[in-house]
């Protein structure tokens, strides 16, 4: 039985549709990310779940109960804000204790649970510090502890790591995943950072302009993007012009002089072929002919820009000692049929 259900949730600001009929079910203990560029409606969705915004239409149920009927302070959700929103006049421990105090938890148990939760986020020794005397990462941990200590039925995280530097962010990603595993709280994470979403989530919801583009496990969304937008948003991709044709039994797509078999579901006519740069390799025999325009060494890998008849192609090859073409070399490019996706339409300018 699904735990959290969003049923065609819609939010309209004047004439602008911020969230357009979003439906999503989340299982208990799952970590689901809402991922998309700014203005895609992900934060608005979170605010509607939290109760800070009223949806124009749609329903939200948590564990079978109607969530929209409750006031924000009765929903019992934990929220970690982008700005952390710590209470600056209280110490870290007082910040964490606030939610327990509001619930009338007796002092002794309160102190025990606060100490326990601060320990969980690795801040056992910092309880008496005020937020101003904590680093960004430590403030982030206090915010997380403050939301976790009330044992929320659902934890909402609004861009929790965006204010941290790259190294700290990676550290917190691991930390967050560890805490989620050990506590088992159901979490909704809002982020615009695709690597963060992929690193942390069980499933990602990729949103664009208020609509859901795809809901899938991170690897599935990466390998089988449902749309060109998803392919482009989740990491680097090549968008190529192709032509789909069929002779009754088999359907094929022609890209820049080479031909791949495709499934029945792809309609005939012009199509967009997406393929990840790291899935493209230099082949002998048959493939898409091209010329290497540029070659960049990036430490663990080489980045190639190859001009082909189907458009420019980016290729990433591991720096594993195999011979690689030089600039201005003529090459043939190939990939496995299962590594590409073919969609009807013309390739739009990449965002």
């Amino acid at each position, binding site marked *: 039985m699904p735990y959290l259900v969003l049923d065609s949730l819609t939010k309209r600001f004047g004439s602008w549709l911020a969230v357009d009929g979003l439906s999503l079910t989340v299982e208990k203990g799952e970590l689901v990310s809402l991922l998309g560029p700014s203005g895609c409606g992900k934060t608005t969705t979170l605010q509607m779940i*939290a*109760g*800070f915004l009223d949806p124009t239409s749609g329903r939200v149920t948590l564990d079978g109960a109607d969530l929209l009927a409750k006031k*924000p*302070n*009765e*929903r*019992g*959700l*934990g*929220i970690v*804000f*982008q*700005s952390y*929103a*710590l*209470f*600056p*006049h*209280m110490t870290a421990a007082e910040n964490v204790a*606030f*939610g327990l105090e*509001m*619930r009338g938890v007796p002092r002794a148990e309160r102190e025990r649970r606060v100490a326990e939760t601060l320990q969980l986020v690795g801040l056992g020794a910092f309880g008496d510090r*005020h937020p*101003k005397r904590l680093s960004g990462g430590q403030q982030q941990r206090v915010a997380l502890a*403050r*939301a976790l200590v*009330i044992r929320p039925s659902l934890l909402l995280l609004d861009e929790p790591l965006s204010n941290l530097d790259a*190294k700290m962010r990676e550290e917190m990603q691991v930390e967050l995943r560890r805490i989620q595993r050990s506590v088992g709280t159901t979490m909704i994470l809002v982020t615009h950072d695709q690597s963060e979403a992929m690193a942390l989530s069980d499933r990602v919801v990729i949103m664009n302009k208020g609509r859901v583009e795809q809901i899938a496990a991170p690897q599935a969304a990466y390998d089988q993007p449902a749309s060109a937008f998803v392919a482009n948003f989740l990491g680097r991709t090549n968008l190529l012009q192709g032509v789909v044709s069929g002779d009754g039994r088999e359907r094929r797509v022609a890209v820049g002089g080479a031909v791949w078999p495709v499934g029945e579901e792809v309609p005939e006519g012009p199509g967009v072929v997406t393929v990840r740069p790291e899935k493209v390799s230099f082949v002998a025999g048959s493939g898409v002919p091209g010329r290497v325009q540029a070659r960049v060494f990036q430490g663990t890998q080489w980045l190639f820009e190859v001009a082909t008849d189907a458009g420019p192609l980016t290729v990433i090859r591991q720096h594993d000692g195999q011979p690689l073409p030089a600039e201005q070399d003529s090459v043939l490019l190939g990939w496995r049929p299962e590594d590409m996706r073919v969609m009807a339409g013309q390739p739009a300018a990449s965002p």
Partner: protein
Amino acid sequence: MTTVEDTRMATDIHTPTPATGPTTTRPETRNWTPYLLSLPALALFATLLVVPLVMTALLSLNSFGFYTGIENVWRLDNYLEIVRDDYFHEVFLRTFRIAFLVTLLSAVIGAPEAYILRRMRAPWRGICLLIVLGPLLISVVSRTLGWALLFGSTGLINQGLMGVGLIATPIEFMYTETGVVIALTHVLVPFMVLSVWASLQRLDPQVENAALSLGAKPFTVLRRVVLPQVVPGILSGSIIVFALAASAFATPAIIGGRRLKVAATLAYDEFLNTLNWPLGAAVAVLLLAANIVIIVGCNRLVERRYKQVFE
């Protein structure tokens, strides 16, 4: 690894710079330009503020006789007279009682007002802010005379209250402390609103949502989360309001009349009616000193109590 390398490089390049800079090799050379540039302002400040204050302080040490006029002696007689005479005690107590009540009322009215104003939507916020600031745009004399019209025994307030049947005999507003406090609060509330407003601007709007999400009721959010964070604003507002209320002249003079004296009207009367300038000067100096002591004392107290918010 690259970041480590970079930082080391950066420190290598930047650390020696201050050591070889002009400050350490030639410490005796002072840059006088900032002082020279601020000289005109300093001169203006000195002539318009420091000189009159020093002259008043010196004047307060002279003595005065009805037949001899001001005598050029340097004694503390005026201060002793004020310290010994109950009449002066009463005036000073009244002055600070009024100032304290006005400050309290301004805080009680002004702080919620600023909070409500901040939560208003775009067109209404501007309009309401203008209404709040209104008293400051009107001349003190016409505003106070307006209050006098409302306050009189046949004034609008008393007639209204009697018409409704709430009171049988008119309430005395004119020539009472109540009247002075109401009229002063009216004009000084905007200062409180503005300074609380300024500290509300620094408040993270998500903080209130955070408290709500943790299960706090709206009133608890205000008391436990918003109020402690606007204490600096309430404090600076209180300092302005207290200082202005304690030294207010026009409002106590018109509403309080000739007999309900406060320190400012007392000093004025000593100067212009009794012509005892030295005594008037002593009153003025004491008012200034008491103001400074009270304000600095309260400031210290509140800053220590809410240390974290002020940092």
